[in-house]
C-alpha cells in the first residue's frame, strides 16, 4: 500500500491479501513479437498494480485495436478488447456507471490519435476517471508497417514509399490542448520512471494520459533510441521534477529558461542569469508552461525531449459529477415513482 493520496481510487474496494505481479498474469500465451517494447510495459504494470492493494476483480482494462490493444488478454483482471479507436469512449461508459472500478485504457498512436482522435480529446476534456496508457511507437504494427500520426514527416513506409507528407501529432500537446488534467510521458525501457508515472496516474482523479515511448523492433526499430542509449540519453532527455530547476545534460550543464519573447529555450547554465532558469511545477493551474515544454522536443532528432508528469491538477471527474447530479436529484425530489411518471399530470379516468 502506498502512502500517497489516491483520490482517483477512493471508491475502489481494497484487499488486505498480499498480491504479486504473478497474480495479474493470465494463462494466455503472450503473442507480441520477441523484443517488442510492450513486454516491458506489461511487466511494469503487473509489477506495479499490487502496490495499489485493489481487489483484482475491481480492475478493468479496456483497449481498442492494434498491437498494444492485446494488453487486456494478458492481465488477470476484467477486460474488454474493443474497437479500433473507441476505447476511451467505451471505457467512459464503465467509469461513469461503476465508480467502484479502476478503469485503464491501453491504446497506441494509431488507435488513439488517428481513428480514435475524437474520443481521446473528449474523454480528456470531460475528465472521466480513466488511466489511458498510449503506447507510441510512431508506426502501425498490426497492419504491418504503415506510417502513423506520430511518424516524422518524410517517413518511408509501405504506404509512403516516397516519404510521408503528413505533419505529425504530439500526444502531450494534444492532451494539454484538450483540457487534460493529467498528462505524462515516459519510456518503456525505464522501469523506474514508468512505474513512478503510473503511480501518480493511478492516484489522479480524472483522465490521466500517459504517453509511453515504446519500441516496435520489427517496423520502426530504434525510433526512440537517442532517448534510451546510455551514451546519448543524458543529452537528449529532460527529466521533469516538481520543485526542481529544469536541468539536463551529462554534467547537468543545460537548462530551460524563459526567453525574451515569453517562449522557453534550452541554454547553457553558465551563460544565463540563474533567476531565469525555470523551476518546474506540474500542479501549476496555467497549462502554458506544460504546453511550452511539450513543444521543446525536436521531431526528428528527438533532442530536448522532456519526460515525466507535465501536468497534474485537480478538477472534479466527469463520472463524479454525473453521480452527484443523480444523487442530488434523488435527494431533492425523492426516488422516482414509476406509476406517477407514466400517469402524467394530464390524465383522465374512464369508469
Amino acid at each position, binding site marked *: 500500500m502506498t502512502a500517497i493520496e489516491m483520490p482517483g481510487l477512493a471508491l475502489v474496494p481494497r484487499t488486505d491479501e498480499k498480491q504479486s505481479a504473478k497474480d495479474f498474469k493470465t494463462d494466455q500465451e503472450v503473442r507480441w513479437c520477441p523484443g517488442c517494447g510492450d513486454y516491458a510495459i506489461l511487466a511494469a504494470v503487473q509489477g506495479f498494480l499490487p502496490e495499489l492493494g485493489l481487489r483484482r476483480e475491481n480492475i478493468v482494462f479496456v483497449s481498442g485495436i492494434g498491437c498494444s490493444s492485446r494488453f487486456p488478454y494478458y492481465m488477470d483482471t476484467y477486460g474488454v478488447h474493443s474497437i479500433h479507436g473507441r476505447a476511451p469512449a467505451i471505457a467512459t461508459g464503465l467509469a461513469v456507471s461503476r465508480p467502484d472500478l479502476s478503469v485503464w485504457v491501453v491504446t497506441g498512436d494509431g488507435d488513439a490519435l488517428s481513428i480514435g482522435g475524437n474520443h481521446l480529446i473528449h474523454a480528456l476534456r470531460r475528465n472521466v476517471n480513466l488511466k489511458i496508457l498510449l503506447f507510441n511507437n510512431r508506426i502501425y504494427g498490426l497492419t504491418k508497417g504503415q506510417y502513423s500520426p506520430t511518424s516524422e514527416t518524410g517517413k518511408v513506409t509501405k504506404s509512403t514509399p516516397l516519404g510521408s507528407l503528413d505533419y505529425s501529432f504530439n500526444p502531450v500537446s494534444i492532451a494539454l490542448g484538450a483540457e487534460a488534467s493529467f498528462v505524462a510521458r515516459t519510456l518503456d525501457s525505464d522501469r523506474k520512471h514508468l512505474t513512478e508515472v503510473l503511480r501518480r496516474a493511478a492516484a489522479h482523479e480524472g483522465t490521466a494520459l500517459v504517453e509511453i515511448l515504446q519500441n516496435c523492433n520489427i517496423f520502426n526499430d530504434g525510433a526512440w533510441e537517442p532517448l534510451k542509449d546510455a551514451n546519448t540519453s543524458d543529452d537528449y532527455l529532460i527529466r521533469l521534477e516538481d520543485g526542481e530547476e529544469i536541468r539536463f545534460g551529462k554534467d547537468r550543464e543545460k537548462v530551460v529558461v524563459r526567453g525574451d519573447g515569453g517562449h522557453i529555450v534550452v541554454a547553457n547554465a553558465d551563460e544565463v542569469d540563474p533567476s531565469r532558469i525555470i523551476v518546474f511545477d506540474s500542479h501549476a493551474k496555467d497549462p502554458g508552461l506544460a504546453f511550452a515544454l511539450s513543444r521543446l522536443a525536436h521531431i526528428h532528432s528527438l533532442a530536448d525531449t522532456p519526460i515525466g508528469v507535465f501536468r497534474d491538477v485537480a478538477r472534479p471527474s466527469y463520472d463524479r459529477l454525473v453521480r452527484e447530479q443523480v444523487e442530488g436529484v434523488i435527494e431533492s425530489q425523492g*426516488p422516482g415513482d414509476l406509476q406517477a411518471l407514466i400517469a*402524467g399530470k394530464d390524465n383522465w379516468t374512464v369508469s
Partner: protein
Amino acid sequence: MVRAPGVGIGAGQGETVTAKATDQAQAGKSIVPLGHVVIRFAGDSGDGMQLTGDRFTSVTAGLGNYLSTLPDFPAEIRAPAGTLPGVSAFQLHFADHDIMTPGDRPDVLVAMNPAALKANLGDMRPGSDIIVNTDEFTKRNLEKVGYAANPLEDGSLDAFAVHEIALTSMTVEALSSFDISKKEAERAKNMFALGLLCWLYSRPTEGTLKFLRAKFAHKPDILAANIAAFEGGWSFGETTEAFSVRYEVKPAKMVPGTYRNITGNPALAYGLIAASRQSGLPLFLGSYPITPASDIIHELSKHKNFGVVTFQAEDEIAGIGAALVASYGGSLAVTTTSGPGIALKSETIGLAVSLELPLLVIDVQRGGPSTGLPTKTEQADLLQAMFGRNGEAPVPIVAPRSPGDCFDAAIEAARIAVTYRTPVFLLSDGYLANGSEPWQVPDVADLPTIEPGFATESNHVDEDGNPEFWPYLRDEETLARPWAVPGTPGLMHRIGGLEKADGSGNISYDPDNHDRMVRLRQAKVDAIARTIPPLDVDDPSGEARVLVLGWGSTYGPIGAACRLVRESGHAVAQAHLRHLNPFPANLGEVLRSYDRVIIPEMNLGQLALLIRGRFLVDAIGYNSVRGMPFASEELAQVFNDVIESL
C-alpha cells in the same frame, strides 16, 4: 369578412357520422354533434402551429375523445418566413369512437398564410372548410409562393367553405392595451386561433389557461397577452357571424381505466425506465442528438431520480460504445438514434453480437438514404437492422405499432436483450415518435419481471480440478452466456471482438470453432421465437382469403383500411408483426392459409423480401416512401382490388 356565412364546418367523410343541430347554446348558437373531425393547423415555422396543435390535442384528450395526431414540420428550424419550405402543420383526428389514424384528409384547414394554404389545399376535399388569416394575404406574401392572383378573390376556392378572418390584426387589437411590442402581440395570433377553434368545437378553456400560466410564469406581460389573445379568439367565435353554429364531439366509450395522451418518444422513454425498474438494472443511455430520436434523451434526462444516467456522447459511435460497456458493468444499456446514426454504430453492434451483452439499439426511422428527410417518417431501415453488419451478425428486432405501444415494445426489447445477452433493435419511426393517441396507463404492478441472472460463481473446472469461469459456457435452454460483471470475485475474464473458443471464450482462430460459434449465435437468436406469442390474426368473419401483413407504424392505417374494406362488404384478415427477427413460430402457417398476402410498407418491400425469402410465399408488396403514413382509403382500395381479383 366572411365568405360563407352560415355554412357549417363539417365532419369527416371517411367514417360514419351523424350531424344534426340540437341544443341551443349561449349567444344563440346551436351546438351540432359530430362523430369525428380532422383538423389541420398550418402556418409558418415560427407561427407556433405545433404548440397550437398540442394544446388542442391536450384538451381534446381530457374530454375523453379518441384521437390520433400527425405533426408535419420541416427540418429547417426557421425557413424564410412565408415560404413553402417553411410551412409547419399539425393534424388532429378526434372522435366519439375508436379511430386508428390521424385521418387521410382534413375536414378543416386553418391556414395562417398563403404558403400554408398552397401547401395543404391539395389534401382538401370539395366542401371542406378553410379558415384563413387574411392579414397575411398581402401581395408580397402571395408572390413568395407563386400566387399570381389572390386565391381569396379569384374564385379558385369556390369549392370550399372559406372563412376569412383577420387573425393577426384582431389579435393586435385585442392586445392594444398591453405593454408589449406589436411584434410580440402578433406572435400571440396562434392563441387567438386556438381560442376560436376551442370555441368552435366546444373544448374547455381551463387546461390551456393552466398551461399558459405555467409556461409564462416568469413573464407576466406575455402571459396576460396570451390569455387575452386566447380569450379574444373564443369571444370572437361567440359574436361573429362567420360561424352560425358550433360543434361538439362527445367522449368515446373506452375500456375503464386511467388514460393520458402520449406520443411515441416519451412512451418509449417510460418503457425504458420501466424495464430498468423491472430488471433492477440501472438505466444507462449513451446517445447523440439526431432527429427524430432526440426527444428520448430529452425525456430520460428529466428523470434522473430513477437513477437514470444519460450520456450525450461526442458522436454516435461513442454513444453506443459507452452503452455497450456500461452493459458489461451491469447496466441496462441503451443507445438511441435514427438511420444515419445506425450506420455509424454498425461496428459496435457487431461487437455487441460478439461480446453477447444486452444492449438496446433504438432506431427512430426517418426518410433516407443519407440525411434524407430528417423530420419525415419511413420504414426503410428494416434490412439495415437485419443485415447491416460485417459477418454473420444476427440481431433480434422488435417494432412498436402505435405511440403508446412504444412503452410495451421497449420492455419486450429489454426482456429479449437481458434474457438472451444480445443487442436488440427497436424500430420506431418518425410517425410514432411524434404522433399521439390516448393511452391507457398500465398498472406498474402488472408489468413483467426481467431477470438479469448475473453469474456469481465459477462454472467449470480446469485440468487440475480447480474451479474456473468460462464466459461462453451457454445456458442449454436459451443458449445465452453467463453475465459476470466486474467486481464479482473469481470470475475475472477478458472478452473482445476476436473469435472466441466455444465455452472458454479464449481467442480462437480454429476453423471448426468459428463455424460452430457462427451457428450458435444464430441458433441463440432463433431460440427467442420459443418465447414469442404466436401471431394473432384479426379476421372477424373467418372467411377472408386475403391477409394483410404489416409491421410498425402502419398498424393504424392498415387497421382503418381493413375496417373500410369490411364496411364495403368484403372479408379481409389483418396480422401485424411485433417481432421481425426472429419471426413468430406460426408465421409460415398463417401465411400459407391465405390465397393472397399483401404487405404494405413505407419502403420498397423490405419485409416482403424477408417473407418471400424465408417462406417462399408470393407476397404482394404495396409501397410508398412519401415521408407520410399511408392513407387508409388508399390502402382500402388496394385491398379491395386484390380481393376482387380472386
